[in-house]
């Protein structure tokens, strides 16, 4: 390993710390500590799964050219706003589904719609 403490190790350390003080917190702090721990889980999954790369591949594949993710998103949004793309445009819904599935798998892997969309 090139780095003694990889970012994943830092995330795990902070998550363990939050868990260790859980019993000392109450009310709003306890609630926010839970939310914070959940946010760290998102970070850990994003590091492991690289959803931005998956989204970029799906959008670039659909548009037929490579670009950064932000540029791809902006291009799709611009073409939808201009009416050059519509919900009926062949392949668009499928490409967007692939992109969003990768995001939800990171943000909330237990979300029921995710399993329904993956099963298609």
């Amino acid at each position, binding site marked *: 390993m090139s780095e003694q403490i990889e970012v994943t190790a830092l995330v795990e350390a902070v998550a363990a710390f939050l868990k260790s003080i859980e019993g000392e917190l109450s009310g*709003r702090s306890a*609630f*926010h500590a839970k*939310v*914070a721990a*959940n*946010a760290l889980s*998102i970070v850990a999954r994003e590091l492991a799964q690289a959803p931005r790369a998956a989204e970029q591949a799906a*959008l670039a594949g659909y548009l037929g050219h490579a670009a950064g993710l*932000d540029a791809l*998103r*902006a291009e*799709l*949004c611009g073409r*939808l*706003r201009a*009416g050059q*793309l*519509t*919900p009926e445009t062949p392949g*668009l*819904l499928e490409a*967007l*589904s692939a*992109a*969003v*599935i990768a*995001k*939800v798998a*990171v*943000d*909330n892997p237990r*979300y*029921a*719609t*995710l399993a*329904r*969309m993956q099963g298609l």
Partner: protein
Amino acid sequence: MVNGSTKLLTPGWPVTDPTPEAVAAVLTRAVACDVSVARVAALSGGAASATYAVDAQRDGLPWPLVLQCAAAGDVADGALPKADQAALQSLAGRHGIPVAEIVAVLRPEDGLGEGFVMARIAGEALAPKWLKSDDYAAARTVLTSQCARVLARLHAVPLVSVAGLALPGGRTGAARARMFALYRSFSVNSPVFDLAFAWLAERCGDAEAAAIVHGDFRSGNFIIDATGLAAVLDWELAHLGEGAEDLGWLCANAWRFGVWQKPVGGFGEREALYDAYAAAGGAQVDRARAHMWEVWGTLRWGLACLQLGHDHVSGRVRSVERAAIGRRVSEVELDLLHLIRFGDI
């Protein structure tokens, strides 16, 4: 649990909690009785308003109340002024809709901002509890028809009776344009949201407002007791529009709290809702129209997620909770895609 206790927890509010003495003065003005207030306890606060449980006594008898107030001038753009919200809630009560009775409306000289005091309704306000606990199984079986009846009654209230209230709203097309402007104000590019806006533009039309819409009629805004719907809360997003908007919002996936197989708020079926709505005097529900409003409501929840994330990013309300809710945008995008591809969720 009591009225209004499921709002976001927010640091920064309240700046100062109302004192029992200040609340007692409001109550004394409202009723010609011997009034005392033992305790005013914060239940929760949104960004611009807060809710308190008030333990009062009236002629020596317990008088459980709720105070809802916003810092003066802090009522959000497009939201109903608190006094008008109280007036609408009372009007709904007179039309047979279960609501908490309004006891007093705050005045500037009270020094408590804008707001009102209402009865505290016994029952469960936490939707995840009443949706899942066996204690509320009987309540859930009657809830769909009760919701349908409430909405049918509300949507039948003649608009002339709210002519004096500052209810926002208007044509459907203008409402879509306002929602799109809100989306663009966050400078976020979500291809799915743009797709949904395009989908809505093809379908929403530009109908004139024909009804009072509650605007936030969902599982999280009910008080439920053993017999079902004890009170409909949170009238602050009421506006003029199309009644079916309330039906669509009630069916948005976010309000099912994981009970996604029950499209009506996590407790009921769409056809039962539509049939009961028509039977209670509401209009016959056009299925395509109801679907359009479900997409609309789902997108609206997505914009709320963006707004909450934006609160954090912009520094308006720094909060790990708001930052985390910003990451729920992807759930909404997936629901929108399912709705648009397959006609339901």
